[in-house]
Structures are given as structure tokens and as C-alpha cells.
């Protein structure tokens, strides 16, 4: 009977070997190898926000919600506008009611009355996905449902995302959320369906003051690229090493 067991063990060993061999037919490519295989893209989408021009009307937020079918009444949003009010005592008051969708019509900041005479500076900062060069969200997605396109935009595959929320946790900018209807990870994608067809994004189109612009960093003649090259610009939270690609003119230390 000892031989029965031996046979059984031999049989299972053979089974495992046959199961493993086909696996070796797969090859794992490093991102660099993969890039080399498909060639370099001639586009790198970047965004430029001029905070001096933003008046906090919120038209971009409303336009984005409509364009990208994010339910209008819920607090989650692909892009939002923050209001910063710094008072003379050094305190900073920040708010973004409903993501700034309806504009900042109340003088109360975060429900707090602020004496106009006590304000030392105040400004608005629009936020959106930074389409990072080294995106933390892509790194942590266990199934590859979040991925980076050749032209630098990070997309989510709605048919493959398992809804674990790891990417939401990993993004240092808090731009991600679960889509209230589709129940998968959702975020700004620079209106990829529009920009890849030669249109501009919904928010850029909606902004009456030209505070938002989108451009191609690989095109030296692109006006956005030229501004980024020749003006002092900054990015948000570069200490996380994500290499964000939304550039800001007039960023302040107080901006979170």
C-alpha cells in the first residue's frame, strides 16, 4: 500500500509540473520594455492653472459633472475649487462647499463669519487629477484596472475594477472616489474622450476667465508648454514623488 501513496504523490507532482509549464510561456515586461515595444508617444497632456484668474464661479465644476455624468447632487466630483482666506492673525480658512459647484456666493467661509478688514489675502485654487508621471494609484491597483496611457493620462477601466479602493487610499491628492452609480473607482481623466478627438476639456471650455488650460508638453510650440517653460510654475505636494503634471501659476504655501 505504500506504493499507492507514492503513486499518488508522483501523480500530483506531474500534475503540478504540467500546470506550471504553460505559465512560463508568459513574459513579464517592465514598463520601460513595454514602452520601447510600442514606441514613444508624441503627446504628453499637461494642465496649467492660473490661480490669479480664477474667481471661484464654479462653472468648470458644473460643466465637468454634466459632461462626465457624475450625479449632480452628490458631494463627490472629478474637479473642484477651493477657497483660501488668510487672515491677519495668520489663520487660514479653507472651504469648498459641494466642490464649489455653485460658486462661492456666501461670505461665510466654512460656516464662519470673517471680518473683511481682517483678511490679508484670499484666492481660489481649482483642483483635478494631476495625471502623475509616477502615479501612486496605478502602482497599487491589484488588477491593472487603473493604467497610464502613452500620452500620460491615467484611466480607469470600469469593466475590470474590483472596487477595492486601494487607489483611492494611495492618491495623495484625494482626487479619487467611487462612482455613485457604477460602483468603481472614478476620477478626472482630462476628458480623455474629448481631447483624443481634438476637442478641449469641458472645464477649460466652461471657464470664462481662462484660468484653466490644457496642452501638450512634447510640443514646443504649444502656448501652454511655452508658459510652463518660461514662467515660474509649481506643482502640488511634490514630496510624494508622484511627479504631478498639473502646473500652477501663483501657488501659495497655504495651499493643501
Amino acid at each position: 500500500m505504500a506504493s499507492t501513496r507514492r503513486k499518488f504523490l508522483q501523480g500530483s507532482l506531474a500534475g503540478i509540473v504540467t500546470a506550471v509549464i504553460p505559465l512560463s510561456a508568459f513574459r513579464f515586461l517592465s514598463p520601460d520594455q513595454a514602452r520601447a515595444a510600442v514606441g514613444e508617444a508624441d503627446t504628453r497632456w499637461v494642465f496649467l492653472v492660473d490661480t490669479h484668474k480664477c474667481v471661484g464661479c464654479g462653472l468648470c465644476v458644473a460643466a465637468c459633472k454634466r459632461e462626465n455624468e457624475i450625479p449632480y447632487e452628490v458631494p463627490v466630483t472629478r474637479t473642484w475649487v477651493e477657497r483660501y482666506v488668510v487672515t491677519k492673525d495668520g489663520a487660514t480658512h479653507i472651504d469648498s462647499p459641494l466642490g464649489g459647484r455653485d460658486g462661492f456666493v456666501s461670505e461665510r467661509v466654512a460656516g464662519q463669519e470673517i471680518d473683511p478688514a481682517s483678511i490679508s489675502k484670499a484666492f481660489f485654487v481649482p483642483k483635478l487629477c494631476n495625471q502623475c508621471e509616477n502615479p501612486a494609484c496605478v502602482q497599487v491597483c491589484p488588477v491593472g484596472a487603473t493604467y497610464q496611457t502613452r500620452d500620460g493620462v491615467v484611466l480607469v477601466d470600469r469593466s475590470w475594477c474590483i472596487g477595492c479602493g486601494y487607489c483611492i487610499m494611495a492618491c495623495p491628492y484625494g482626487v479619487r472616489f467611487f462612482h455613485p452609480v457604477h460602483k468603481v473607482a472614478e476620477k478626472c481623466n482630462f476628458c480623455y474622450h474629448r481631447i483624443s478627438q481634438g476637442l478641449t476639456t469641458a472645464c477649460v471650455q466652461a471657464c470664462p476667465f481662462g484660468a484653466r488650460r490644457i496642452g501638450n508638453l512634447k510640443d514646443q510650440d504649444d502656448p501652454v508648454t511655452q508658459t510652463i517653460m518660461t514662467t515660474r510654475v509649481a506643482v502640488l505636494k511634490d514630496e510624494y514623488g508622484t511627479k504631478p503634471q498639473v502646473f500652477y501659476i501663483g501657488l501659495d504655501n497655504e495651499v493643501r
Partner: protein
Amino acid sequence: MAEEMVVHGLEWTTKELFVYPNEFIYWSIQIVMYPYMTGLVAGAFVLSSLYHVFGQQDLKELARFSLVFSLALLPVAALPLLLHLQQPLRAANPLLTPHFTSAIAAFGIVFSTYGMIVISEIWFVYRRFIVEQATALTGQTGVATTMKRALYRTLTLGAYDLSETALTKDKKAVKLLAGIGIPVACFLHGYAGFIFGSVKANALWMSPLMPVIFIMSAVVSGIALCMLTYIVIMKWHQFRQRSSHADAATAIGGAELEVINKAARYLLGFLVAAISLELLDLIFRGYTAMKSWDILRSVMYGKDFVNIFVLQYGLGNLVPFFLLLLPRRTIGKTVVALLLVLYGVFMMRWNVVIGGQAFSLSFAGYMHYHLPIIPHNLETYREGLLGALTVAVMPFILFWGINRILPSLRYR
């Protein structure tokens, strides 16, 4: 739109000061349960291996039991993840297209490897018993008996050899599997720690110590649960014996007490290691005082003070520490200490998972978590008190089932 519209997290999150609009407590109670349950699995396994690998004879009685118990806990470790997913039907996707830069991509692989080790070890431990059952039932009639016989026959996998040499080989195999099992068990759980520790966006989670802290507290909780269940089962059995024949033993016998004492010593050792690491982490954060320290401090010493220092460290660590250490320990005191240890480890998981989301990524605001108690839709069941309780009772149900086939405790 006809589909149900739920903003995930809105239900149980309240915000204070400035929090980004999309921030909510996305990882809720089930993500507290997940490391808690894997911790129990790993701990139970390590306890059983102390006997099988390092020959700690005094743990013999407990070893077999905790091995079977870790099998009962195993499927339950994956359950919270399933309940947490927004798309549970796609749970197999990580196995189909694993994206290995993600810390959770390999969960299925690590988990099933570990499962295989536990199952095969149990098979070798019980092979003799299985064969004996299968042989003893041969020739008997009755539907139940036939089914039982068929079950045990299948479980033998055709290996009926009970000769001296074969049994020695079994023992060797057990030792080997238990030996491989320890690093895999630690990996399975250290890995849960890595899932948190590697999130660079989260100031509280990001720490290379996280996996080690998780392993230590895992072993603590695993040993505590095994001891507790062991005591309860022993007591229950005595109770039944006493009611059947009045003159039988009255208290837990000397042998059982011995087992419990030995196990308690290991528990204390791991508890000290766990607390030291956690304190090191805390001191280091305070000393280096990076940008995030201001908000972390206000959470740890302010908003979560009771949760962290009173409930976790005080009630969950310090009190049981002294209860177990002081002389004249009784079974009653031990039980209280074990319950507190289990509670302390749970609070540690809670303070990591929920505490890590208690402050905004903006470092300028806070979020508060309100556990849904009474569910009014699927979401509040899955990620509410009832969902957590479902996960918590499951291992005992499974253990009861497995124990009927492979009895893991010998009653005297």
C-alpha cells in the same frame, strides 16, 4: 437612472474643518476585520508550530487544536475583503490579471499557498485517524455510516499504510510543513501590514515597522484566541461530565492548567515585542516630527486618545499583562486577560485602519467614523456591525463542522 445611487462612505463619515470633497472613510469595519482575522489565522498556526517544529512538548495538547482552528479561521480571513469590495463578483480578477506592483495583487496566491500548507499538514497529522475510521466503518450498514465511510475513504487519498515507517514519514512531513508554514504564515500577515505600511499618501500608515508590528500582534491574538477557546471547551466538557456522573472531576485538571500556563508565557513574550515596536514607532514619529506630525499628534493625543491610550494600550495591553504576570493566577483571571488581549489587538487594528482615515489628506481637517449598527440596505449590512459579526462568528461555526470530522481535542 434606475440603479441605486450611493456615495460610498457618505453614510458613516462626518467631516470637520477642511476635508477634500472626495474624501470619505472608504476603508471601514471590514478592513479592520481583515487584518484581525488573518492575524488570528497566523497566530493560531504559529502556536501549533511551536510544538511541531520546536518540539515544545508542553504545547502538544494545544497544538493539534490550534492547527485545526487555524483551518477554520482561514476562509474567514478572505471574507471581509469580499464583503468590502464594491464589485464582489469580480473578486477573481486579481488572480486573472495580477498587477504585481500592487501589494494586494498577490493576496490570492499567498493565501492559497498558505491554505495548501495548512490542509496538507492537517492531513498528515490526521492520516492515521482517518485510516482507522475508514477501516473501522467497513462492513457496517446505514445511510449515515456509508456516507461517513465514503468521506473518510476519500480523505485517505488511497494511502492506507499504517506501518511504523509510514507513520514516521508522516511525522517528518508534519514537521517540514509546519516549518515552511511559519514563514508563510508570517508572510501572509506581514503582508497585510505591508498593504498599509506602503501607502505613502497616508501619514499614519506609512512605516516600515508596520509589517513587523502586525506579525507580533497577530501571534498575540492567535495564541489568545486558541487558549480561550481551549479553556471554554474544556470547561464545557467538564460541565457535561459533572452533570452525567456527579463524582467526576470538579475543576480544570493539573494537565490543562499546565498547558495554559506555558501558552501564557509565550503570549507574554509576543505581547512585549508587539508593544515595544508600537512604542518605538510612536516615539520615532514624535521625535522626527515631520510635516504630518501636527495633525497626527492632534489625532493621537486628542481625538483618538481614549481609543489608543486607554482602550488599546491600557485596557487591551497593560491590564492583561499584569493579570497574566502576577502570581496566583486563576482560570477566571486568565479568561479575563485573554478577552482583554483579543480586544486590545482589535482596537489596534481599529486605530490603524480607522485612525489612519481620521484626518484629511489636506492635514487641515478631520473625519469621524460612525459604524452603521442597524442596516437599512446592503451597504450598511456589509460594512456595518452585522457584517463584522457575521465574520466574527464564522470561524466557530466552521470549527464545529471540521471538529466533527477531525476531532482535535481529546477529553479525559
